[in-house]
């Protein structure tokens, strides 16, 4: 694995992993590790990225890596962080959790809450592909309103998932942790900056990275980045930081695009364009996006004053 005269540094998440072609989360992990460098201890919850990167007896990780269960990645990370402290080896690297949205906003919630509460020096990163994609697209707490999944299917009596997407960054911020941020795989520079801030902060940090899944969402594998950007440009995915409890550095969406542009490219929203009453549903989604855009604009303007 020598670096054969190439200018690019060794990939810390190496080729040969089994993620689908055009995988958003795989791109996210590469970007995360490019930002952190090799001095990290990664803890992975069960999920797509754990499965595709560790098919026995191989590993795609070129950093120390451990997988435990869906629910306890934050607890395992807490143990590692304390052990490093006790051994006087905290300088060896930062403990980073990389987990999916299911392992974060649903199953891992109590362990995460404990980790935040105890104030461990850990950067928790959630790649958010908005459902349980490893097992074939089941709804999670992070699935957006009206998305059709196998457990929230659209049909004659349903427009798909009838609950709003859980606001996990707000829950994290409510713990009073020093750093919370949202970003997207469609904005690599923003992602890099926020990951670096997340690992340099002393104490718990929480990052949520929007990472489209072309299989589960139903779009062409070439459009992963395009879709990620559209989520931000339409206002459906907001990018901001919460530093010491204060909402800041919001990405202003000056001319937001209509949500249809984002929705119509994805099979999980296709029913909205076919079913009677779909238009009204799209309006509901548009209103949410517009409210998002307005809210962030106000904050951005206040900040620039």
């Amino acid at each position, binding site marked *: *694995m020598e670096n054969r*005269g*190439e*200018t*690019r540094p060794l*990939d810390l*998440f*190496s*080729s*040969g*992993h*089994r*993620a*689908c*072609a*055009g*995988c*958003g989360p*795989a*791109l996210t992990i*590469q*970007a995360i590790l490019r930002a952190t460098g090799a001095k990290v201890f990664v803890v992975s919850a069960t999920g797509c990225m754990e*499965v*595709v*990167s*560790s*098919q*026995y*007896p*191989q*590993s*795609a*990780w*070129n*950093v120390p*890596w451990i997988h435990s269960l869906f629910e306890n990645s934050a607890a395992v990370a807490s143990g590692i962080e304390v052990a490093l402290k006790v051994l006087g080896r905290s300088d060896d690297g930062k403990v980073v959790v990389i987990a999916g949205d299911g392992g974060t906003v649903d199953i891992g919630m109590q362990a995460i809450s404990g980790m935040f509460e105890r104030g461990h020096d850990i950067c928790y990163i959630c790649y958010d592909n908005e459902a349980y994609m*490893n097992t074939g697209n089941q709804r999670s707490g992070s699935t957006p309103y009206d998305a059709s999944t196998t457990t929230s299917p659209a049909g004659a009596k349903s427009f798909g998932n009838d609950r709003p997407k859980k606001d996990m960054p707000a829950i994290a911020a409510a713990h009073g942790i020093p750093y919370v941020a949202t970003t997207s795989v469609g904005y*690599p520079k923003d992602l890099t900056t926020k990951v670096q801030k997340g690992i340099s902060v002393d104490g718990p940090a929480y990052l949520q990275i929007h990472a489209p899944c*072309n*299989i589960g969402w139903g779009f*062409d*594998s*070439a*459009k*992963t*980045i*395009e879709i990620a950007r559209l989520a931000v440009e339409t206002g459906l995915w907001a990018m901001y930081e919460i530093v010491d409890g204060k909402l800041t550095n919001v990405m202003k969406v000056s001319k937001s695009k209509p949500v249809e542009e984002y929705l119509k490219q994805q099979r999980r929203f296709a029913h909205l364009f076919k079913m009677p009453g779909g238009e009204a549903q799209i309006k509901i989604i548009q209103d949410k996006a517009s409210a998002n855009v307005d809210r962030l604009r106000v904050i951005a303007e206040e900040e620039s004053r």
Partner: protein
Amino acid sequence: MKEVRIHGRGGQGSVTAAELLAIAAFEDGKYSQAFPFFGVERRGAPVTAFTRLSDKKIRLRSQIYEPDYVIVQDATLITAVDVTAGLKPGGIVIVNSEKSADNVGIDQRIDTRTIDATGIALEIIGRPIVNTTLLGAFAGATGEISIESINKSVLARFPGKVGELNVQAAEKAYALMSAPREPQKHVKQRIRAKRESKVQPEGEKIIKGVIGRPGTSEATKTGDWRVFYPEFDMEQCIRCGKCLENCPDAAIREHVLHGKKAEEAKRRAEELEKTGKIKKAAAKKAHIQYQLNPEYCKGCGICANECPIKGIQMKLEEK
């Protein structure tokens, strides 16, 4: 009872093919079973599905280890997976390939039939989805099932235009495969499974329960998953690095040319710039080359979609 094993890649519809075949068998008045191999299937990764057909009730519930027939949806699987493992004497292997049966890399003693299902599917359906085409080929080559039942089963699953196109493709394959052919070869014995394929880098010992070394996934060449590959126009390329940054498989590399090669590249680029064929931004960085690592590229097409000058074209891989 006849047992069929289907080798494919995630997303190629192997499991669907197994199910369609089982439903077609019902239509023919037979008993049948279809089920997939449980694993971590990802789009493009090797997958297996099974179908049993019988005139009597089927009590067996196990995986199929000794198939009568094997369908290979993608010829690149032959080097990656032991497709003929356990094949019964007189068994038939049907391979999706443009090549002749003697040249697809399967044991010469085995009765192998090839069909260019990708070609047929692209021509008739317009997409490289080959499962229904191969079912037509299966019906033609083995006579185990009627093409009418295959068609019925396909139309029930995919009503409307899509189903009709799939039926057309299946019928074409059926006609090609049921044409008279030379006497069949016969293997007297069951084909033994090869020893477990190499999953660890050379010289690396597998210790049970332990992942020996970091970064060992590089031993898995995911390049054979792809259907399309990106072709770079390095003359027009402005070296923005978007393709490198957005490759989920780290399959695009930057090489910096040195010495004579670098000078040569620069000179050529300057000439092109003078004639107005390329932009200055491209000419200035002519010594930097982006190269695809075909061993790992899965052909997702993100690089082509993100390239700001549209300098990357996705081309159909020849298999």
